[in-house]
């Protein structure tokens, strides 16, 4: 028998709840008060543009391959200047689990997450976002990266003219 311990264990919780009743609740009253979200919050996906204002997406399908719920689909096309882009790009947000694996897979930083989590609606079809819904007019998290200026394939500028590139080497010159 531990009478003293049991008595204390019976009375103490009452004191704790009484004290809690006089404290201010920690609830954030959502629609009126909004929480400060982390800058890395993962919610709605966007397709960003590079600093020159062109689409970053090169329609490589890596995001749809990485997607665990298969909610990303697209059609790849190549423009005359050698630029690849998506003819159409579709994300089904009714299936999206906001894991962010697509953004990790993206080699051109095109697909990015935003903090906009207020996606709820009554019509599921309205949650199927097409390319024009996804494409934004800014660079997203990274304001410098431009895939075509790093890739050395001579699309945005002739080969060797970008700042991080050196002149292409004519391999036949190196022959003995």
């Amino acid at each position: 028998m531990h009478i003293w311990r049991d008595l204390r264990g019976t009375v103490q919780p009452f004191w704790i709840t009484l004290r809690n009743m006089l404290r201010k609740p920690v609830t954030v009253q959502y629609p009126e008060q909004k929480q400060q979200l982390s800058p890395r919050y993962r919610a709605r996906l966007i397709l960003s543009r590079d600093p020159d204002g062109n689409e970053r997406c090169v329609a490589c399908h890596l995001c749809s391959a990485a997607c665990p719920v298969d909610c990303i689909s697209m059609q790849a096309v190549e423009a005359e200047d050698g630029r690849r882009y998506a003819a159409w790009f579709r994300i089904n947000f009714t299936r999206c689990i906001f894991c962010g694996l697509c953004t990790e897979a993206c080699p051109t930083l095109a697909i990015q997450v935003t903090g906009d989590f207020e996606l709820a609606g009554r019509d599921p079809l309205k949650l199927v976002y097409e390319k024009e819904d996804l494409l934004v007019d800014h660079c997203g998290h990274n304001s410098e990266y431009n895939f075509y200026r790093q890739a050395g394939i001579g699309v945005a500028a002739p080969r060797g003219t970008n700042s991080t590139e050196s002149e292409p080497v004519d391999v036949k010159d190196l022959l003995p």
Partner: protein
Amino acid sequence: MSDPLLTLVLILAKLGVIFGVILTLAAYLVLAERKLLARMQLRYGPNRVGLFGLMQPLADLIKLLTKEDFLPARADKWLFLLAPGISAVTALLTFAVIPFGPPLELFGKTVPLVVIDLNVGVLYFLAFSSLAVYGIALGGWASNSKYALLGSIRGLSQLISYELSMGLAIVPVVMMARSFSLTEIVMAQEKIPYILLNPVAFMIFLISILAESKRIPFDLPEAENELVAGFHTEYSGMRFGLFFVGEYINLIILGSMVTVLFLGGWHGPWLPGVIWFSVKVLAICGFFIWVRGSMPRLRYDQLMHFGWKVLLPISLLNVLVTGAILLGMG
């Protein structure tokens, strides 16, 4: 107006007022409980419907009424439909014997503020609180579900065990007041309430009615984390609502019984009797909510152990000691 007609009108008015007040009080007790519990857990509780969430009971009622009235496959249909009614009606009927104020002078007539002043009011209360067990037992049995059945079996054994100590806690009160009538018990407490004369009986009664109302720490019949929802697992819509309302009416009844038996009923300085009575009842209900926010649930064997091996001997001893003292005082 002729005299019998006046009497009839007065009785009907009294019934209507009691019915309305009890049901409204039960509905708002749910809201009060949700808000108080929320504050104990550092939340706000319902505060969206109306000012401070005061229309929440109405919203809940609309929700419950528009939900599907679900009947499980191979359930015992009639018992299933009847059980919530038994639960709510027995709770409501119990209030008939509870005196909630001193007799009132109206139109030259003395109107006792009790529906019927039975000379065996205590027995009536005990009988109806036993009958309320049928609601749980039949509801759980008729649902054709393991969880409901387990819940109702637990409820049965728990209520029967704790009714013993509850009854034995009332015995000293009856001995001291020398009456089974609740009105006379209140009258006998005019100078000093029985909580001061017999605190042991008060504690036993309080613990027993906690078990009787199937609330934390004795909510084993509906233990959520073991039995889904216990005896009302299969109930939906307003039938669940009846069980729910019955539980809260029962809470008010038990609070009134504590007030009548131990806290001196309507007696109190300065304020009118009815107000004193309501304050005491609401204080007891508030205490019940506080207990719910503070206590964990007992294990089943602890519950039985406590009921039979602790409460019952103490209450028997209390009856004997009280009897001896009363005998010694003559």
